[in-house]
């Protein structure tokens, strides 16, 4: 049996990985030059405890079901994850009442360890918090994760277990015959399959429409600021303000890599490709975050970015078979807490696949040689964080590539960059290297290491340096060889002179 998954975000890759436990052929199709290139790369990177959503919503259920599974999952996939706990911060009695409601809701959902903290208890956990913060709902099971590394980890593992990933491949239409989806038309030809899973994120409505299923995704933009690691210790937990109807508000949190992150705001936009930041938005994020931590150093920002939430009007997830055509599963409206729900969504889709298999007289057995764990790639910064720098010696003795630091800010060696190029889902762009190694994600933002990473990519992919891109397609870094432009100009001038 053959299955196509459209979209290599965290949901698509999670599904591909879970399906790769079975005897099926899996083809994961992604329009961008790397996995995790849409919403999965630009979000808060948190695993919610699950007290927020109602248990009768699909997103509430998926979130609560997923939360306990992240420890083992991340250990297997070698993804940085930490249960740092979260605090929803209240300022007065009115807030306290709401916090108590949330706690009750969470407890009803089976979430353990929820506590209402008073001011001294908050201060003990967060010394830099706003001096007017009076109460907080503490959720010890909330965590932080690297969302793109989770996606890459899923994808790598799926490929290790036989799945195939096609990048730079855009689905243009579905192949539909006899009321059944038979495959996809793409810019790289047709691909046939017995079941199609639409996990196209922001574009999942567009794919669904190809089968006549009507959904309308309203992208909601969220902007963020990421701070230099020196400010990473400003907070210990994920700090939430009191939430509004559509958003959990502007957060302040540490990242798993030791930076500090603030955001997101929430603005509905029309353009699904609009990942731009705005001056108003960036200001709004600062203002919001300062309500929680007034001492935020504005000069400490090393990058700002925005992500889009793929929200449906009813604000819930939709995971179901197509209403119109056979052999299509639509996964639509996966916004927050989508990342926190990925494991349960993948499980649900596997169950649906089994149902479909049974109904249609296919057979899929469990793969006997499935390997759930990804290998550990050596990362110098792990050794540094664990105070085990001496142990890096052995790694350098085996291969001197690991003794040559390319990215000075994040301490990434040439060996780590070459590993990223050779992983099951290989890095082919500067951004893909960044997401796998952290090279160029530091304070100089590729000022020093950019040219060196470009050279490594060019050497190892055996392509001209002029062909190396930041993120695929037209995002080339270089324009011409030295003297080419000026020689062309001189030739042009002499032609004009001759006339």
């Amino acid at each position, binding site marked *: 049996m053959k299955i196509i998954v459209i979209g290599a975000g965290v949901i698509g890759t999670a599904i591909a990985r879970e399906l790769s436990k079975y005897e099926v052929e899996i083809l994961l199709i992604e329009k961008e030059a790397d996995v995790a290139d849409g919403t999965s790369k630009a979000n808060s990177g948190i695993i919610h405890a699950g007290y927020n959503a109602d248990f009768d919503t699909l997103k509430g259920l998926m979130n609560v079901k997923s939360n306990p599974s992240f420890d083992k999952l991340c250990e297997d996939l070698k993804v940085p994850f930490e249960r740092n706990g979260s605090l929803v911060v209240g300022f007065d009695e009115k807030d306290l009442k709401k916090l108590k409601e949330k706690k009750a809701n969470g407890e009803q959902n089976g979430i353990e360890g929820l506590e209402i903290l008073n001011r001294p208890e908050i201060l003990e956990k967060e010394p830099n918090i706003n001096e007017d913060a009076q109460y907080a709902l503490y959720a010890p099971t909330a965590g932080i994760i690297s969302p793109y590394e989770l996606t890459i980890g899923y994808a790598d593992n799926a490929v290790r277990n036989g799945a195939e990933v096609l990048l730079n491949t855009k689905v243009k239409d579905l192949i539909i015959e006899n009321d059944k989806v038979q495959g996809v038309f793409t810019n790289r030809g047709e691909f046939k399959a017995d079941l199609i899973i639409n996990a196209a994120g922001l574009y999942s409505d567009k794919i669904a429409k190809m089968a006549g299923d009507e959904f309308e995704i309203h992208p909601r933009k969220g902007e963020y600021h990421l701070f230099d690691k*020196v400010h990473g210790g400003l907070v210990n937990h994920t700090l939430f303000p009191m939430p509004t109807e559509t958003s959990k508000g502007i957060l302040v949190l540490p990242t798993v890599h030791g930076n500090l992150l603030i955001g997101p705001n929430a603005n509905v936009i029309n353009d699904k490709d609009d*990942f*731009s*930041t*705005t*001056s108003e*938005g*960036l200001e709004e994020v600062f203002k919001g975050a300062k309500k929680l931590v007034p001492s935020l150093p504005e000069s400490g*920002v*090393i*990058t*700002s*970015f925005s992500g889009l939430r793929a929200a449906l009007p009813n604000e819930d997830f939709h995971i179901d078979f197509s209403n119109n055509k056979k052999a299509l599963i639509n996964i639509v409206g996966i916004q927050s807490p989508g990342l926190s729900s990925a494991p349960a969504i993948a499980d649900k889709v596997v169950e649906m696949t089994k149902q479909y298999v049974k109904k249609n007289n296919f057979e899929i057995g469990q793969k006997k040689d499935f390997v759930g764990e990804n290998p550990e790639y050596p990362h*110098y910064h792990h050794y*540094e964080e664990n105070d085990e*720098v001496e142990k*890096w*010696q052995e790694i*350098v*003795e085996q291969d*001197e*590539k690991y*003794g*040559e*630091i390319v990215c*000075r*800010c994040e*301490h990434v*060696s040439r060996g780590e960059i070459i590993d990223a190029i050779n992983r099951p889902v290989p890095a082919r762009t500067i951004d893909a290297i960044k997401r796998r190694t952290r090279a160029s994600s530091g*304070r*100089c*933002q*590729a*000022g*020093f290491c*950019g*040219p060196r990473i470009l050279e490594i990519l060019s050497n190892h992919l055996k392509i001209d*340096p*002029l062909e190396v*891109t*930041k*993120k*695929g*397609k*037209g*995002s*080339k*870094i*270089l*324009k*011409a*060889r*030295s*003297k*080419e*432009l*000026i*020689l*062309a*100009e001189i030739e042009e001038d002499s032609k004009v002179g001759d006339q």
Partner: protein
Amino acid sequence: MQEYNMIVIGAGPAGMAAALEAEKNGMENIIILERDEYIGGILPQCIHNGFGLEYFGEELTGPEYAYEFIDQLDDSKIEVLTETMVLDVNDKKEITALNKQKGVLKLKGKTIVLAMGCRERTRENIRIPGDRPSGILSAGTAQRYTNIEGYMPGEKVVILGSGDIGLIMARRMRLEGADVKAVLEIMPFSSGLVRNKVQCLDDFDIPLKLQHTITRIEGDDRLKRVKVAQVDEDFNSVEGTEEWIECDTLLLSVGLIPENELSKSMGLNLHPVTGGTFVNENRETNIEGVYAAGNVLHVHDLVDWVSEEAEIAGKAAADYINNKLEKREQKIKITPDKNVTYTVPQTIEYTFGDKRFVKVFMRVTEPMEDVEVKFSNNDKEIISYPKKIVMPGEMVTANLPAALVKDEMEEIKVSIVKKVGENNG
């Protein structure tokens, strides 16, 4: 753990000069650790001329200037280890470094010279909103691509910031056949050297738009255009002045940040204005035997002064090892006053010995003409020097004569004020 009399971090102009000067003053057992594969720091990619006028009395290119020192290093006993990244330094002067051949190195220095240089500020530091396409890079990165790697990063170029690197790269891009649309400067004056403004922009008809900045960046994959606006005195964009400039490349020359992550790991505090450590007249930091020189201490506009400053540190380190230094009973603070943004050094801590003066480096806050640089103690002038013109982009230096500094002085103020007694009207 291998011990050295001196460990220099960085083999740029500051590191090279400090090590050489220490050896000239009798120090042995010196090592320089350099992260790049070649030494010379940023100089090898600065292929334009204009270096060395102050130090050598002749005009050299960056590589030529570097080779003056590299040749001396070859003739010296100083050990140089390239492709060696210092990953940590602590306050006991113990260094952890990583080298391709040797792996993890642990070294200890009786003295350490911090000479890590600086890095360029990024788009993110100045928070220009918009898309995040390729084609946006710092002027120094573009310089590396063009002069070392042999590639042009773009054809239609806008440059933000009129610092020296921005000006030099405007000319370099034009000479390579690019269409340099404009150099934008948020301040009402260029922050680069005057000679660079003339030779790099005026001579090539490249417009310099003062009090202009970029308010938005557009382009999905590669940069397509930038929105440019005039700014008022508070740097807010003036409504109605916005225009789009089509370009595929944006070079940023928006300031340099001393690269002091290692200094911080030693527990050294940074000066809020210079971004470097606090130092005394020997360029010694608050940890005895640890020195800082060059752009890691404060950003210089001339490499000549980097060399000179590093020699001060190198000699002092040698004197320190040879027990030739004597501390003053009380420190003298050097404080910036009218129209002086900062001074280096910030204190005088040792007796002068055979030293005849302390050279004080400073920057002005605002451009001014017909001024004097005045040292004073308790409102009484110690000495003053006339200057025709001072600009924020050009560092000012003045010598404080040893003979005029008295032991009882606690603070010496430095100000730059209009010359008195002269009527220009």
